[in-house]
């Protein structure tokens, strides 16, 4: 373990309406074993003692699974480490004297609440548009009644691993939510349980996604590159297929 000193340039914005700006702070003696969020905790403790409003940021599990944390660090969503959420990014990846620029995830569809805190409720609405199977509680068939090859299952699980953090949107030059949407569509398209609504699902979710103000996909692969769960853009190709199939063979209303 060693300790480093850092200069932080952080986006400060008191509320949704206010204009924000970048403020510069310094933190000293940050253990390289600490996580990025713990480094921000140290900053916030210091700011509080100085009587300054601490930096607001979202976080919860600090284990890389809840998808609550996230910020753009030196231009990269969740920072420089591959397949790592901000809370799992450790300070050993920075050097003494580094300047780190920290900004919120930005997108038209993700308004800023305060500092690094954003509103990602658009993601919920995309799921509400069709990211489920229409089964009620109770009366479901025995879990082993349909066999699913482990290969197919693993593919579905790869897609299901999405934590809904929004890094894909934040890093996409068009602010597209295709990776997020495609992950859910893929999971359900790959499983026998998801077949009943299959033809309507992709259309409904894409329509909602477009309506929320997310951009279109230009296949830049930025989303895949920053995704903390390594969700592949092959899911986007699958979404495109599902969408096409739905449009041309689905019910027309």
């Amino acid at each position: 373990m060693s300790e480093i000193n850092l200069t932080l340039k952080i986006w400060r914005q008191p509320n949704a309406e206010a204009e924000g700006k970048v403020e510069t702070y310094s933190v000293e003696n940050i253990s390289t074993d600490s996580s990025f969020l713990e480094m921000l905790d140290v900053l916030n403790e210091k700011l509080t003692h100085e009587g300054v409003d601490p930096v607001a940021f979202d976080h919860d599990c600090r284990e890389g699974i809840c998808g609550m944390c996230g910020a753009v660090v030196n231009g990269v969503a969740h920072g420089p480490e591959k397949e790592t959420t901000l809370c799992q990014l450790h300070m050993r990846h920075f050097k003494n004297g580094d300047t780190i620029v920290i900004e919120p995830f930005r997108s038209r569809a993700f308004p800023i609440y305060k500092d690094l805190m954003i509103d990602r409720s658009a993601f919920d609405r995309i799921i509400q548009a069709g990211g489920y199977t229409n089964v009620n509680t109770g009366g479901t068939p025995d879990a082993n009644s349909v066999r699913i090859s482990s290969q197919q299952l693993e593919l579905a699980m790869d897609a299901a691993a999405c934590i809904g953090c929004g890094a894909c949107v934040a890093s996409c030059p068009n602010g597209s939510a295709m990776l997020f949407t495609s992950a859910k569509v893929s999971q359900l398209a790959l499983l026998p349980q998801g077949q009943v609504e299959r033809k309507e699902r992709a259309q409904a979710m894409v329509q909602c996604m477009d309506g929320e103000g997310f951009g279109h996909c230009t296949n830049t692969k930025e989303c895949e590159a920053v995704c903390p769960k390594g969700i592949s853009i092959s899911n986007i190709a699958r979404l495109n297929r599902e969408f096409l199939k739905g449009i041309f063979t689905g019910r027309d209303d």
Partner: protein
Amino acid sequence: MELKSNVPEGPLEKKWDNYRFSSKLVNPANRRKFSIIIVGTGLAGGAAAATLAEQGYQVKSFCIQDTPRRAHSIAAQGGINAAKNYQNDGDSIFRLFYDTIKGGDFRSREANVYRLAQVSNEIIDQCVAQGVPFAREYGGTLANRSFGGAQVSRTFYARGQTGQQLLLGAYSALSRQIKAGRVTMYTRREMMDVVVVDGRARGITVRNIITGEIESHAADLVILGTGGYGNVYFLSTNAMASNVTAAVRAYKKGAGFANPCYVQIHPTCIPVHGDFQSKLTLMSESLRNDGRVWVPKKKGETRKAADIPENERDYYLENKYPSFGNLVPRDVASRNAKEKCDEGQGVGPTGLAVYLDFAEAIQRDGADVIFRKYGNLFQMYQKIVNVDPMKEPMMIYPAVHYTMGGLWVDYNLMTTIPGLFAIGECNFSDHGANRLGASALMQGLADGYFVIAACVANYLGTNKFAKVDETNEAFLSSRREVEDRLQKLLKNSTGGSAGKCTVDEIHKELGKLMWDYCGMARNKEGLEHALKELPGIRQKFWDKVYIPGSTKDINQSLERAGRVADFIDFAEIVVRDALARGESCGCHLREESQTEENEALRDDANYSHVAVWEYTGEGSEPKLNIEPLTFENVTPSQRSYK
């Protein structure tokens, strides 16, 4: 306080059927006239909201996070139990029931646990139908693993992300109901109070975390699925927002709090690395299937693990418990690790860690087999600690993980306040003094998907409801109380920050006191010491805590301060409960109550009961009530893992 368990008549295996048959129902057409508030969108709350809305009730659902999908349940790794017996290895509902009761060291209610085992199978069917990708065998049937030393393979899992996948299943069912307009979802709301009208819970007071507004919400009944209170120790494996506020508010309004001293301390967590540490990370228990736990025999050893020869290593679990070895239950493994470290044999920079070594397993099975089994855990460990467990042994240390205690509920999952229900980790019901691995997810979903609906119908069907809305005096006075309390929290903020402390500083102080004196091993002297110290911490908090900003907008320091204030109040009943329970049982080890071989010694003659704490007003001592436990179908035995 009257503690009627309301366990239905009949033989054990018929009780749940009898209950459902004899309970009142609500006609489907009438259900939409009833409104239900559910606080929490974890496995318990999320599943309950979806299920009750499907049945036609009007549901209002609340959570702290920005979306229901991020509740703390998401972090569960290992798996979920069910008595499917898919592996044909002798499992049955009765065996799951028996293991759970025994694992809980005979401190839970038989009827509740049996019901849990009964509905466990339906949970798996339900989740699969929702598209939860449980692991499958090559042939396409569901895979199982043996977990936490169970003798059968009954644990279903989705890689190391079972909690996530189950929660996303519940979340998708909930999303469907939100879309259908049957659930109104309130995210980023923190429940601050329960509102009781004419002796019944009729609503809640919440704070909108974004706008700072205090809101009142009325309904016909209130269900709490607000999770556990592990964060009273500051450092735990729980998510940062996990809190006891909702439960404590209910407690102060008259709900009994059961067995608060039962706190599970998980043996395989990544050790603490410094003062700035904010939380502890769990490493799945499955690691103990192949890893060997050891410490150096020599105290204050400075050599690296690889340089310590075999005969100078102390494989203390294997030596002490030859038949279970490294797979002894969590409490036993944790306690022994602590003992070794207390004796000075601990490793790592702080001396508060033991080795979990895979060298032998790698030699036996080959590196790729071991990596395939544990690769993602190893990578997680390496990300945090920067050490590759394939090359060097892991270092682990116990950490606070799960709380078996919670709001007291009867067989109806109702607290001592009529109309206030508690489900999931928030109640005390099924795990006794110790929870088995993979059983919390099972309980959360059992309560949420299958049990609560029957209980709610029964309650609604047997009572008449006067119309109550948010203008009722009880709501107004609750709002005033909440607002006053927030103002009180901010009172030190005028006059600058000099000489004041931050919320976290006090939370850490509280956590350390609790860990040192009410942690893995407890004794009278230490507990009394903690009880003496607590008022000082409370005083310091109210006199010194500095919270920048106002109550009127986003203020994360204020949110945390409110929670810490409740943790401080709550810590008192944890300590009192630990003190009152003079026996050792499950996770609660009283040093005074041990066998000659230093094993936990239960005292059924005096403590075969649920301890339920009753609030008696600010500044006055809480009252202890007792629900005796009787066992008709199993015979309590002393646990032995030798």
